[in-house]
């Protein structure tokens, strides 16, 4: 078996879809029913054996219990099972993988398939088995690709490393999405960079689905629109009714973008809020918001100003420097870019203190930046024409942002919580929302605009594609900002992985489905293994016991502390220290200091454990 992924880091050992309706009579061969089997190089008789036996035993059990089988375990492998109509899906993982993660992975996989192909039964009527097999393989390899064991445990969304990224850029991405939403045909979108989320307006589940297509188009170039220079593509996707309702329930103005970006945790509100406020000038470089209402500048500024004085901003005071001119070829040096941003931030902040009138005067520097940003994009369309008006519109809007950020993120969290709260009623792992075939699927279109590694993905109404005006509007309004954003993001070096500190932690945000950790993604680190093992056990325990808040578990080699609330799960392990202990209860034991150490250490990673 030639495997690209080492078996160690593989999430799944087996995956198959078996169609029982094709094997009804005595004479029917089991192979007729095998729609897809992974690994594909498995000998056919073994495929038949597994499919036939598992599906048979599964059906027998489900008849006895009058309910479909969810988990089936062999001695060495555990299978997450889905039984629907005559279809039988099985996804086999090694025994260490938490059961809940295996079930999640299978659900993700099936939902992905339905997202891009519509209902499974129908797909198998429309397309050849080979075509669909290629798709299963594609989705499976996408879900398995290059993530660490820790990420497998949580099935989290991969985001850009926000500690290395200037928050301004996150805001920028959010604004691009908002701007696109002005077009009534656009439901929601997300901005991705090299397979990682920069900003999204969609639920984590939906974002995850969209990302598959993105990574696919990264390598291939599917149907494109010649008029847009090959950077734009689209594909039909299928949303479930709850997904669609969720998207439509959000008023377009409502700033959803701020909630899914990382680092918007409640405890951090203060600093961030002030930062967002002072960040405003960067938003002025958004020339994209054509034709939306503008409120009087002063009116919108004054409340924000008073806010900003209350929330004392970071004492980030770089000495004012003259702005460097852009490079002659239209590209600018990253340093210059950064400084320019900082510069504007600095001026803006100080000008805020000076009062509204001065703000106007100081508006020069962002102006300048704006102009050369557009120049940098190489497409002058709209840039100069937008002029001051757009500029300040942007500023005004982002002054609204902080307020919205608070409300929208709060609201968003609540609604997600609400959904989660409903879940426990259903049997665990079989969330009603993730059975796509139960409710009709609504065809929608996924619109993708790529600028090198950066992708703007929008879920749009199907007739968006025929509506040239809307399409052009969305395209042109976002193009320049995308170029700018791409240029910024490209220059951010991945950042040397933190020197392995005296501790390991993992922080999982259940709402946004994001994971923060100081653990390198590469497998094989010996000291990591006990941590990953403990995390996987504790995560399962947290999932099964609603009332559990905190846990410390210790083996001979490692003590790990886990803590969870409705919104997050945090795991912490301290290296070194005196591991020598007798295990007898002792209040001076270092293991019991873990909670306070975690609280301390993790603050600097933006994790607040109260």
């Amino acid at each position: 078996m030639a495997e690209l992924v080492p078996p160690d880091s593989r999430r799944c050992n087996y995956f198959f879809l078996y169609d029982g309706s094709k094997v009804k009579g005595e004479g029917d061969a089991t192979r007729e029913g095998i729609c897809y089997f992974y690994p594909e190089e498995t000998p056919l008789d073994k495929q038949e054996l597994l499919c036939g036996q598992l599906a048979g035993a599964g059906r027998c059990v489900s008849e006895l219990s009058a309910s479909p089988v969810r988990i089936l375990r062999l001695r060495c492998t555990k299978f997450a099972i889905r039984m629907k109509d005559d279809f039988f899906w099985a996804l086999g993982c090694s025994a260490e993988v938490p059961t809940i993660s295996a079930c999640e992975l299978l659900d993700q996989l099936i939902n992905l398939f339905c997202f891009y192909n519509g209902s499974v039964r129908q797909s198998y009527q429309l397309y050849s088995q080979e075509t669909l097999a290629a798709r299963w393989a594609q989705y499976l390899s996408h879900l398995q690709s290059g993530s660490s064991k820790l990420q497998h445990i949580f099935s989290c969304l991969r985001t850009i490393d926000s500690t290395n990224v200037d928050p301004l850029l996150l805001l920028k991405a959010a604004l691009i999405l908002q701007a696109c939403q002005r077009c009534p045909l656009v439901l929601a979108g997300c901005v991705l960079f090299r397979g990682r989320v920069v900003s999204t307006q969609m639920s984590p589940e939906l974002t995850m689905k969209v990302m598959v297509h993105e990574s696919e188009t990264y390598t291939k170039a599917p149907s494109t629109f010649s008029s847009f220079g090959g950077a734009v593509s689209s594909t039909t996707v299928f949303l479930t009714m709850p997904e669609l309702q969720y998207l439509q329930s959000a008023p377009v103005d409502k700033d959803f973008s701020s909630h899914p970006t990382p680092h918007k945790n409640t405890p951090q509100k203060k600093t961030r809020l002030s930062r967002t406020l002072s960040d405003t000038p960067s938003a002025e470089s958004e020339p994209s918001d054509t034709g939306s209402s503008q409120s009087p500048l002063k009116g919108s500024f004054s409340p924000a100003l008073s806010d900003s004085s209350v929330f004392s901003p970071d004492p980030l005071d770089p000495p004012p420097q003259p702005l460097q001119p852009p490079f002659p070829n239209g590209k600018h040096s990253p340093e210059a870019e950064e400084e320019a941003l900082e510069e504007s931030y600095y001026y803006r902040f100080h000008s805020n203190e000076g009062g509204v009138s001065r703000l106007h005067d100081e508006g020069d520097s962002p102006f300048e930046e704006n102009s050369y940003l557009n120049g940098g994009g190489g497409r002058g369309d709209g840039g100069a024409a937008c002029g001051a008006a757009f500029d300040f519109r942007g500023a005004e809007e982002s002054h609204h942002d902080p307020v919205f950020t608070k409300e929208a993120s709060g609201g968003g969290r609540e609604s997600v919580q609400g959904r989660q709260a409903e879940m426990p009623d259903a049997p665990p792992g079989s969330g009603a929302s993730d059975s796509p075939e139960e409710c009709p699927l609504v065809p929608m279109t996924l619109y993708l605009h790529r600028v090198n590694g950066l992708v703007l993905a929008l879920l749009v109404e199907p007739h968006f594609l025929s509506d040239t005006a809307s399409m052009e509007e969305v395209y042109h309004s976002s193009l320049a900002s995308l170029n700018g954003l791409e240029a910024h993001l490209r220059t951010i070096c991945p950042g040397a992985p933190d020197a392995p500190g005296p501790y390991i932690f993992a922080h999982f945000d259940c709402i946004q489905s994001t994971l923060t950790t100081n653990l390198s993604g590469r497998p094989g680190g010996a000291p990591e293994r006990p941590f990953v093992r403990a995390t996987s056990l504790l995560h399962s325990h947290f999932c099964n016991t609603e009332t559990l808040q905190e846990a410390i578990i210790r083996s001979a080699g490692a003590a790990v502390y886990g803590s969870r609330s409705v919104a997050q799960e945090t795991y912490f392990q301290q290296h070194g220290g005196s591991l020598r202990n007798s295990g007898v209860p002792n209040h001076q034991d270092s293991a019991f200091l873990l909670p306070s150490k975690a609280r301390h250490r993790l603050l600097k990673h933006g994790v607040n454990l109260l």
Partner: protein
Amino acid sequence: MKCLLIASESAEVLFQWTDTEFQQNVQEQYGASQEEGHGLPAFEDSISTLFAPIIISCSTMVDRLSDSYTSFTTENNHIYILHQFDECLYIAVNGDGEEGEGDLRRKIYVMKKMIEVMFGMVTLSSNLLRRELRPQDTEQRARLWKHLQSLLETYSQLRENDQSFLVEAVERLIHPTLCEQCIEFLERRLVQQLNGSVERAGEEVLHAFILIHTKLLAFYSSRNASSLSTSDLLTLIIMAQNMYPSNIDLDDPHPEDVESTSGSGPDSFYTPEPSPTDRDSSSSADKPVRGSTPVFEFVDPDVQMAEDSLQALEVPPPAPSTPRRVFLEVSLKDGLYPMMPHSMYCLPLWPGISLVMLTKIPTSAVAMSVYMFLEAFAKLEKRLSEGQEGSAATRGQPTIHDVRSKLDKFIKALGPSEIQSAQLQNVWTEFKNRAFSRGGPGFNRDLIPWCKNMKTQLCGIYRQCFLIESGKADIPQRLSPSLQERAQTMMQEKLMDWKDFLLVKSKRNITMVSYLEDFPGLIHFICVDRSTGQMIAPSLNITERNTSELGKGPVAQFIKSKVWSLVSTTRRYLQKGYSTVTLRDGDFYFCYFLWFENETGYKLEAGDIPILPDESAPIGMLAWDYYRKLLRYYSKNHQGEVVKCYELLTVHLGVIPTDIILQHCRQLASKLWEPSRNPLL
């Protein structure tokens, strides 16, 4: 909705137990077609039909993939646990959420343990066990199944309500003076008299103990006896409870009784002189097996030795004075002998109080020989199947030539007895021809079936010796009824004045009240000494009429359920190598500690604890002694030291600062065992 099923590879039901809900469910699904067919056979048929596809699929998976199902979970949370022991597949089902995967797996292992205690080495031959578990005669089968079913129900009931069966350790009644008196009485008066009597028919009382419900008041082992393992003792308690169930709701202690018991807090906690241990146990064991000609005093000419003609024998319903044949582990100087035959006499003194005696039967030396031969053939078979041949396959202790001469003598000794040994002799002759003759094939793979055959034959001999009641024998093989009666009367006289006290005391063994002052915020604890298999915990009586400190009804019930789930949670962590666990759960803070000490009480460094797969045997001491294995594993690095293993579980109010909680745990850990270092057994 619960079910436990044992099936053979050919999907034949060897045993089934279902609750009424499950039975109804099956009948609804199956019943439509055969309405009139009610009663046992019809239900048995339908259950076998329903499970057949799973059972057959299971053996297909084993054959072709060398893997097999261990569990199924459905979306409505029905759990199916499967486990194969040799050729018997056990399936446990729960559909009402009352049992988790661990509970079901435990139930399977406990069922297997009880079958072992009842059938001994016959369980080593799947072929013989199948016949034993599923007698041809329907009435006999019904009787046997009913007995096994009620044992299983007794066990489940105890596991759900009795803390000692929750943690699988023996709980003693804490009353040191009475305990001491009783041990003395058992030793000087009772056992001595019984063993000196001519009416004992060659039997010898090895162990005698007094049970108050499930709690042990006193335990005495004779000097000749090897120690009784915790696993066996717990199984015997289940059997005794099954014979004379104690109705928990019946006894309602009067307030003044409670008063008298609450004084026995931790302060008055001490243990009397230890009863003699197995120091001198070698005297009987050292009798060389080889030379002794077994004497078979019972006659059963109907027994056919040919394997396929083994008839189900008529077993009359046991008379009250008929002992139970039990097969228990015996540890002697030269090794561990599992499943050695004993007779168990359970004499009820009063409702809830009984005297249990275990006797050695005169022919038990045969069992040792059989076990030794079985082991030799099993080893040989293993080596041969690993591909070793010739002398490589026969090395080891005892040598094959040793076995040969011993077996020759053994068969010779069987000759004049009533045991049908012709078949064994034939197979042995054939084996010798193949293995030892010069021109023969010698030791290679072809010998494997003959090893198997030899094992089956030996199990057959064992079955004849120990499992078949000698109904027609002139001299019944037991302590005479009058002797039993005398023992009963003696004990009753001794405990007459204590009886009411004991019954109350067993409900209020130790109470939380006595700890509240020293440990504010402590709600409950369980402390277990795993080296001796004993536990201490405040009583948790959850009955309608009983009020404990926890109060009545829902609150007490809630705390009880928390304690129960805590035990299963910590076991899961222990299985994965974690020996310290603290949990903040709702309004409670739970702690669990496992640690090792040497004999002087010095705390040893925490070592690696093996990480076991999910489907491994359940952690406990009843069905499979995890802690014995753990101690052996840990002791590897502590040669020459006696290592002891302790566990402590506590439940505190969540508002108590962690520091204080940990101090409590420390104090409890050091305080609880201090006066009771003496081993119980």
